[in-house]
């Protein structure tokens, strides 16, 4: 298989890390985590192609998708709960326990 897929997964992972590090909104940070998990899924399927008689990589990709679903749902519900309470989705502005 061509190495372009490997480079694509590297790029997705780096972009996801960049989004998680630099964006100030919690929802966009969730989007970045989805990008990172997509890179993991792409790698799992790509390395599965080395062993055509096995399907471990594809089934691992399936379970990574399940984990991503759980993470997104729980994260979104927490964000909505926090937004109702603090009226902001910016994690820096939720500083109630911060000593000022």
């Amino acid at each position, binding site marked *: 298989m061509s190495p372009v897929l*490997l*480079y694509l997964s590297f790029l*997705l*992972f780096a972009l996801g890390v960049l989004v998680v590090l*630099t964006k100030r909104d919690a*929802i966009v940070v969730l989007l970045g985590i989805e990008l990172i998990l997509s890179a993991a899924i792409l790698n799992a399927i790509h390395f599965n192609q080395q062993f*055509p008689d096995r399907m471990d990589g594809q089934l691992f990709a399936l379970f990574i998708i399940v984990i991503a679903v759980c993470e*997104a749902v*729980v994260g979104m519900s927490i964000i909505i709960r926090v937004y109702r309470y603090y009226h902001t989705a910016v994690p820096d502005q939720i500083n109630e326990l911060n000593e000022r």
Partner: protein
Amino acid sequence: MSIALYFFAGLSAAAALGVLLFRQVLYAALSLLACLLSLAGLYIVMQAEYVAVTQIIIYAGGILVIILFGIMITSRLAGKPMQVSTQYPVIGSLLALLIFCALVLSQPAVTSHTSDFSTNHWQRAGRWLMTEYALAFESAGVLLLICLIGAAVTAIYQRES
């Protein structure tokens, strides 16, 4: 086959870049949707049809709908479209570039195999899920149930009184 691979790879890379560059949260979420759909096309090219269909149904149909609902709910409370600002752009890009370079330098040598097109992937995936991965499959179901109940309990609306 190769043209489709490069097309979908470029499309998903561009859409992932859009997640980073769009300032409106809604546009970033729709860009992630484009990225996930083109990745599903890539999985079909890589003969992982099972994962591709799961990706379309669960990722593009489920997660993105949840995130769009979250954006709608949170922007309705604020009364204006959500903009996102960035912080630490230089340190963040340097760190991401470092991670990318480290991954490129440490990449393993992937040898190519051409798998035969005649095998029935759906049948094989179902058999593997019900035999070797049965425990993980059932655990995933239990995890999804726990996550569903936990999210509903967390996000439930309570009146302050």
